[in-house]
């Protein structure tokens, strides 16, 4: 039962790794892993441990050419931040959670951009990454709906309506 959030996250991630055969369209590919980690840590933190974040980050690292470990660190940091924020926002409305996600994801993307710029020793283009950021924000309701469905159908109690 405790592994359901992780399994749901991995399934969604695999679906969004599907080839879309377009470099330009690829910029619009949302980072589903981040949405799922954010959602599950906020709503069911006790079911989404650091190990789950480690697994999600590892998968993101392998399915990208960024240095192995970078996404793991960021996913685990995300869990730390959201665990702390959950005290105040766990029962917040959907719109508030969405706005919080926008802020957290922006911070995460900028930090990752800085880390990669230092790692590669040259400025990583930010404009394309920002397209992906906005696309991720647009996909947020859909991914959350899917996660809510999983939560309502496969997890006990705490039924929520979003």
């Amino acid at each position: 039962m405790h592994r359901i959030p992780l399994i749901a996250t991995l399934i969604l991630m695999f679906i969004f790794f599907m080839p879309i055969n377009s470099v330009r369209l690829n910029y619009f590919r949302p980072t589903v892993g981040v949405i799922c980690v954010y959602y599950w840590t906020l709503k069911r933190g006790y079911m989404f441990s650091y190990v789950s974040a480690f697994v999600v980050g590892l998968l993101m690292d392998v399915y990208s050419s960024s240095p192995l470990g970078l996404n793991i660190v960021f996913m685990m940091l995300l869990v730390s931040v959201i665990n702390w924020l959950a005290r105040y926002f766990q029962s917040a409305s959907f719109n508030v959670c969405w706005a919080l996600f926008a802020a957290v994801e922006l911070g995460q993307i900028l930090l990752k951009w800085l880390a990669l710029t230092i790692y590669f020793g040259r400025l990583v283009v930010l404009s394309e990454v920002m397209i992906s950021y906005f696309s991720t924000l647009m996909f947020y309701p859909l991914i959350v709906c899917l996660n809510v469905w999983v939560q309502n159908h496969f997890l006990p109690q705490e039924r929520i309506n979003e």
Partner: protein
Amino acid sequence: MWRRGVLLIKFRELKDILRRSFVVILFIASFLFILISKVDGVVVETAHGLVMDATGPIMQVVEFPSRIIHRVYTYFYDIGRIYTDNRELREENKQMLILQNKVRTLEVENQLLSRLLNYTPPEDATFISAKIIAESGDNFTHMLLVYIGDEPVKKGQIVLGNESVIGRVDKVSGHYAKVILVTDINSKIPVVVERTRARGILAGDNTVAPTLLFTRETADIQEGDVVVTSGVGGMFPAGLPIGFISSISGREISVETMADISRVEYVRIVDYGLSNEEEIRKDFFESKDDAR
């Protein structure tokens, strides 16, 4: 009863300490991974291989519906373009017939000159076709995951889509290979401008048009010039088309890649019998040791 309660509390405290230590260990492991990635050690290769092997079959199942949707879209898109394509192809055909005659003459001339120079031609390249099963899962990078089956593929081998270079093999595990696209920030390919032989390095920057670096200020480069591999470094053979100059603004030269990724379902991984990256690195260090 009281003792049992104390033991239970102590056990919980110990469990909490262990849990916290485990989180710290996970963080340390992640940072170590990043540091090791810089050196590209065996640990990183093994970790990549294990995850790719474990998740590859899932991706093969997941990508099937996407492939069907793409085929249906391409089918209708192609129908819509039949008339214009036909006209363009007729024009192209005329040009090709003229070129064919020229090529025949050049081929004969080449054979005669080669015989005169006692020239040994390079071995024919061999290639395998690999199916694309996944794309980058991160918005900071451009890569593909391809299914290679049991074919022997080495790190550093060139990857062609249609007829031009789209990237190189970065990591190989059992049945899967990770391909870094020329647009990725990790990609750096020695190239030459075909018309003027001006050399440079084509460096990906995560945009659709990689940048041409380290060209001479006086180099004669114009928009539309074709960029091909230079063969410098021995990783890639010379003369493989990559793209054409799309824009020049001051010292910044952008190159648009020729390969239409939207039409690529399968890529060709070519073995030109050249040394791979590891061999080149090994040779480099051995020659350094010899020099010492």
